[in-house]
């Protein structure tokens, strides 16, 4: 760190030491670079980052900037060139009952999917944290839903809920709970339940892994001491386990919100946003506007607003990560 100061101080032919407290203010060699070795290291670091920056610029920044720009244009398939309309697309979005509905649908989906994923992921982690025979195998098997491609999972659940061939109907008919097969995915509540269940099933393993990792650091002696003092399961969970898992919980909640705000594939494969827009979350809305109605300008506008909804939790998540790194 102090190499430039120690390397000598021959400046302009005279031999003199730099004043105390100003060490390094003057170059110690005519060949030394301004800023010294540290500056060189910084430049080298930047160069190492260059491929990543290039990739980021090409894959993320430029498309996003273009989407931002397109949100100010009317651009449909019948137009050879986009036409500038200013903020008209944004006005149209806020005036559109169906798009406002998509924000509400997204909120419902994110709240339900995130809450159930976290509660069930935590419960499963607590179970798998107990010592019992076959625990290792069960932990491994529990990761299967996470490993499976999400569209495969969506089709799997699609078959479970299918009105004609679905397992759910077969069981309900067998038990005499229904007289005729029910089209679960054709009701608003049924379709929403289906996409939430599918996402929860996909998310539990990941969240369980987070919680399980957090539980490994839990002081067992502290728990035993609490039990000796008469603490029950409820007190152990709320007074000891959850406070211990608070940092993990925070990250998992934010990750869950971001992931569910971004969710597209399982919803599209299961319901396509229907019936009657009951599951048309923002990602589906963007897709339909862009690739079914070919209204690129409006799709870009909804996309920009969609990103705006993801930014706050993403910022919070990054801030937590930075804090952890510090």
């Amino acid at each position, binding site marked *: 760190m102090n190499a430039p100061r120690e390397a000598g101080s021959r400046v302009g032919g005279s031999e003199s030491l730099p004043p105390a407290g100003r060490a390094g203010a003057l170059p110690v060699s005519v060949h030394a670079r301004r800023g010294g*070795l540290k500056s*060189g*290291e910084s*430049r*080298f670091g930047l*160069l*190492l980052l*260059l*491929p990543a920056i*290039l990739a980021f610029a*090409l894959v993320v920044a430029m498309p996003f900037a273009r989407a931002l720009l397109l949100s100010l244009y009317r651009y*449909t*398939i*019948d*137009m*050879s060139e986009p036409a500038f309309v200013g903020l008209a697309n944004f006005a149209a979005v806020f005036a559109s009952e169906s798009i406002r509905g998509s924000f509400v649908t997204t909120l419902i989906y994110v709240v339900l999917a995130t809450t159930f994923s976290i509660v069930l992921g935590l419960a499963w982690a607590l179970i798998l944290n107990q010592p019992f025979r076959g625990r290792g195998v069960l932990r491994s098997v529990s990761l299967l839903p996470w490993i499976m491609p999400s569209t495969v999972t969506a089709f799997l659940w699609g078959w479970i809920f*299918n*009105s*004609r061939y679905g397992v759910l109907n077969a069981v309900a008919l067998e038990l005499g709970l229904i007289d*005729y097969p029910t*089209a679960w*995915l*054709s*009701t*608003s509540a049924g379709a929403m339940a289906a996409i939430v269940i599918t996402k929860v099933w996909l998310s539990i393993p990941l969240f369980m892994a987070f919680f399980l990792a957090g539980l490994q650091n839990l002081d067992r002696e502290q728990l035993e001491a609490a039990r000796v003092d008469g603490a029950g399961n409820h007190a152990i969970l709320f007074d000891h386990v959850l406070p211990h898992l608070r940092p993990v919980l925070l990250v998992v909640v934010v990750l869950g919100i971001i992931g569910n705000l971004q969710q597209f594939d399982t919803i599209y494969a299961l319901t*396509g946003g*229907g*019936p*009657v*827009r009951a599951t048309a979350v923002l990602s589906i809305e963007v897709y*339909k506007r862009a*690739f*079914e*109605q*070919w*209204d690129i300008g409006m799709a870009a506008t909804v996309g920009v607003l969609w990103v705006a909804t993801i930014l706050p939790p993403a910022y919070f998540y990054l801030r937590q990560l930075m804090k952890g790194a510090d």
Partner: protein
Amino acid sequence: MREAMNGFGERAVVVAAGVLAFGALAPLPARAADVEFMTWTYTEETGKAIVETMVEDFEAETALTVEPQGYAWGEMSKNLFLRARSNTLPDVTQVQGRLLPTFAGLDAAIDLNEVIERDELEAMFAPGFLAMGEVDGRQIALPWIGGTIGMVANAEVLEQAGVETIPTTVEAFRAALEKVRDEVPSSVPYGLATKNENSIVLDYLVWVWTFGGEVIDADGQPQVDSPEAVAALEFMASLVKERLAAPEIDRPDARRLFGQGAMAFYFDAPVARTFARQFSGRGEEIDAAVKPVPTPVLGDGDTPVSIQWGHVIMPLGEDNASADAAAIKWMMHLLSDAALVDYAVDQSALPVTASGIAAERVQNDAYLSDWAAASIEPRRNAIASLDNGPAVSAIIGEEMQAAILGQKTPAEAASSMQSRLEDAL
């Protein structure tokens, strides 16, 4: 030493970054074939082999090469649109006739009137078919196979249900559906499209027209809340309510159920027979059961409704705007009797050329004759030709779903559809 390492490292990183950047920005490799042909038939089990045969024959005849590029039927328009945006359009593409107006605005579209003599085109195609490829006076595509969207009945299912005659009126149709529901366990008597907006629109158009209504009038204004249109919506909603039709049915579901003997009626193009062969697992053995029938009418003497249907082939790119271009030669090969007749009959559709229709194989196909007889005065799909047809389809699909799933009364759905369409149009 460290500086030397740093210097070496910097140079290496710059070189690596340059290589990466070059790799990312370098032009794509040269095209492998003389003609890129974008088609959904190539992805379908029923069409892949015959497309390959057509390609092989063409390559043997001309020494030109063709690369068939398969895209799923439902993904074609989207991918064509994306390829237009990225300047990677193919030389020739297959397009649904009803969607052709959507692509008329592409810069790469060619007016074939300037490539092939008009007289030659008119002599080549059977009367009426050439217009399938025309938009605003420009011949931007050539017809390939044609027919109509009409009703198809499964004679085996009707026999099982004790339905002895094909229903010709709406009332008789409902009675037949009730028999099927009661006599054929686990069946969906009528495959009313209830899931996919694009499919819903076709069924909606047929029934609104059947009930004497209009969806869009001659002035381009929506008329979907007329008493006739509301009556049609009530009819469709009642079919679902009484389990004569079912939610979650799209055209592919209907084709499968029909082939498996679990559906008596649905609307489709003539390709219905080909799908029935495939999904029944019985091949041509099921042909006798697949009956093209006239759409039931409201009152005796009314004209059964059917909708124009067909596939066209569209050349793209100024380079192909010449009769000598490989793309045009490929299109002409596709329309030659040797290639077209077998393809059309295999797809259970009509070839569109005059000589193709006159071919013995076509004339001897009773199914195609019956289909033509059942489709009197087919009407043009009034939605597909709109600039914002997909958005209009979405509105109709959503409101019709709301009515048939009981979320709105038919009158409420019709009223909402009307106001939304007025805004959209």
